């Protein structure tokens, strides 16, 4: 999960490293569009635009849906992605806390054993 989040984050940066892809995101921020619309807008071939959209899609920044013969693109499920990252951070905090609590519990157990032995002697 940690690795997943990191990979996703790297993918986002890679996706954003290209001017056309940043333009596509900005465009989709205004209105959903088909790959054909985007190809025309950015004066590219359909194949070229499909590749860019594919990179954005893998990074979770864009989702596409095919209705009939038209593939419509829209901004990705960012809310879900943020939530997954948020939950993972929260889990890491508690996991680290509880690892430290494990140590405290272990020390207290050892102490009790020693006290118990001393009492019996």
């Amino acid at each position, binding site marked *: 999960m940690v690795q997943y989040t990191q990979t996703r984050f790297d993918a986002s940066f890679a996706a954003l490293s290209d001017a056309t892809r940043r333009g596509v995101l900005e465009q989709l921020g205004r209105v959903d569009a088909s790959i054909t619309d985007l190809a025309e807008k950015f004066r590219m071939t359909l194949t070229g635009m499909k590749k860019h959209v594919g990179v954005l899609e893998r990074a979770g920044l864009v989702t596409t849906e095919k209705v009939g013969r038209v593939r419509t693109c829209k901004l990705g499920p960012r809310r879900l992605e943020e939530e997954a*990252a948020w939950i993972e951070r929260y889990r890491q905090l508690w996991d*680290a806390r509880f690892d430290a609590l494990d140590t405290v519990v272990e020390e207290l157990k050892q102490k009790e054993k020693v006290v118990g032995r001393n009492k019996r002697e």
Partner: protein
Amino acid sequence: MKNLTTIERKSEREIVVTRTFNGPARIVFEAWTKPELFRQWWVPKSVGMSLLSCEMDVRVGGRYRLEFAHGDSQMAFFGTYKEVTPHSRLVWTNDESDGGAVSTVTFEERGGKTLLVYHELYPSKEALDANAGMENAMAETFAQLDELLVILGASVGRS
């Protein structure tokens, strides 16, 4: 072997953390209610914060106050204990912000081990989103990404 920490977003306003500890409930409860023990684990090193002070008056109506330093800034977390049932249950409020949760922790002993369930109930979904995590810290990487998108968006707009 290390026990698993699980997290569940139970509802829009609730989050639940569970973990089993290899010791009796009496000991885990003690580690949660004695300040000199509590301060040994509540702020793990990886968080990058240090605990400056820790006062806990663990009884119904008693108050607690934790003061932290994070870089140059300091912050305090405080509230009141609502329920104190030795070795099995603690409930307290988090009063440092308006949307603070009510926290409940239960300790259930099974064969010398303790199942700990920590539960936070927020007044609203928005309060949970805004407050939980490292006491108010949201997913930093995504905040940075959002910021980057804004910057990139601005530069795309200009070109």
